[in-house]
């Protein structure tokens, strides 16, 4: 299955991926209109210090702790992609605590949010990958 992989050597810490992620969630057509005067809460996040930066998003594990731990069955696996049903989520944050990558985060409306590889918003490569200027994140099959 194709996943988002990180080439941290080339990450500039520009945070564009976060903005493209947030933009993808709005289903908008113009980023300026969609994101102006908002504070974004992206599902991909840059970890950085002075030396290094890299993007972290859901790894879409084959045996995901989050799915195992979810009390309500809000997290499911479909074609290898781990999806969140925001209607079913009760905001208990069990998944947030169990994800070893810190890839799940709270959202404004109580339900958790996570990367779904843009499965619901677009085709092809996820928006973060398309928006990265330096191929620091790539969408590919790596066995």
């Amino acid at each position: 299955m194709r996943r988002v992989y990180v080439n941290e050597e080339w990450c500039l810490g520009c945070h564009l991926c976060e903005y493209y992620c947030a933009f993808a969630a709005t289903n908008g057509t113009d980023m300026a209109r969609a994101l102006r005067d908002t504070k974004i809460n992206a599902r991909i996040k840059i970890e950085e210090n002075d030396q290094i930066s890299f993007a972290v998003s859901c790894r879409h594990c084959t045996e995901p702790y989050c799915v195992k731990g979810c009390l309500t069955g809000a997290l499911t696996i479909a074609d290898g992609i781990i999806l969140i049903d925001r209607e079913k989520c009760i905001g208990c944050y069990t998944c947030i605590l169990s994800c070893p990558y810190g890839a799940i985060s709270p959202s404004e409306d109580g339900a958790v949010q996570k990367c779904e590889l843009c499965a619901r918003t677009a085709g092809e490569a996820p928006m973060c990958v398309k928006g990265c200027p330096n191929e620091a994140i790539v969408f590919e099959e790596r066995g």
Partner: protein
Amino acid sequence: MAVNYLYPEYEVARNYDRCIACRVCERQCANEVHEYLPDANKMTCDDSKCVNCHRCVSLCPTRALKIVRSGNTYKENANWSRKTIDELYKQAGTGGVLLSSMGNPEDYPVYFDKLLLNASQVTNPSIDPLREPMETTVFLGAKPQDIRRDNFGRLLTDIPPHLKLSMPVMFSAMSYGSISYNAHESLARASEALGIFYNTGEGGLHEDFYKYGKNTIVQVASGRFGVHKDYLNSGAAIEIKMGQGAKPGIGGHLPGHKIVGDVSRTRMIPEGSDAISPAPHHDIYSIEDLRQLVFSLKEASNYTKPVIVKIAAVHNVSAIASGIARSGADIVAIDGFRGGTGAAPTRIRDNVGIPVELALASVDKQLRDEGIRDNVSIVVGGGIRSSADVIKAVALGADCVYIGTAALMALGCHLCRSCHGGKCNWGIATQVPKLTKRLNPNIGFKRLVNLMTAWQHEIKEMMGGMGINSIESLKGNRLMLRGVGLNEKELEILGVKYAGE
């Protein structure tokens, strides 16, 4: 505080209707122009630091930015341009020599733009490059003077060492140090993929790049940085740099802050020490001296590699080239006054040297007149911007061209001409790790390959139009050129007729 005489030359124009305060511009500008104001959730900027490199413009995800000329103007004066006034104020403030980078940007004639190409009509058929084979391969090196046979009358076909190129373009000398590791890797990988050559410049060759040796020209310059036996033998050819178009007659100076880590190791000089290349080679004061170096290098490389001698295009260029053609060199490279540099005194860059078109035409003619044109191949650089320039240079007599600026532009260079500041926002002319990583060679080499592939298509198209199916038959074929807007003397030097003649 002293009065600041200088008003910023550029302004950052931000469209606040489109700005989403993502701070990408702030993070990407090494000149610290942009700043985020958390209280207002708004961006602001200090235009005075902007060098107009367009990094922020290119990366802003909402196209909220552009850089515009600041409207501030001095009283109009045809004699004192804004640039002249600003430079004078700068010098009165600092007492220093003005420094610049990249090629001469001043308004001198560009002869390539005054030359037009021919095409076939009616009486001679043009060729469709999509249907017919079209040859752009060239060989660089000394050509045999006569037909030689052995005792049995069989033809002797051994010829001096040559470079074989898939098209008549090479990446010109840019040292590791003046440009980044990633820029070098991009050039090396693109040369390998294309079957052409790149040139180490005078900074030695990083050990990681020895594997691209068969597509590398190694340079020996007046500072002799990074030169040792393995280096000389690692490349496909050796270039002696006598001069550079951007700064003929003067040496080089790579400031100590760029001599870090691998750069210092590769140059074989201590970290932090200034790398100073003397103006002349201290062992070359005549063609005879040059000949000694040519043959020392041939000896060191066992006569397996062609030797290039590179000179700047200056007043007596044809006489100098004639000397070089007799020195045992295989290739002469001529660098015109538009040639780029990582740093040069502004007055030198903008006032010394001559256009490469004129230099090329007169060198080619002189060597032909003297019957020694086949002693050497001619490579020209310093002003080649497109495939049309390549074709015109070949028609004027060049075997091949060097491109430097055009190659860097493929890698992202926006000609802001601030290389000497060492903070290139595109990761090219810098050694700061945070900046060099902006140039991912996986992307860079593809862009170089794209550019050259596009040029090759265009070269074939133009050749086909002229009814020529091999670039060799275009070489020195000045009948394929006509001049416009040129005077008698210019036409005479270029050896072309006026349009309509």
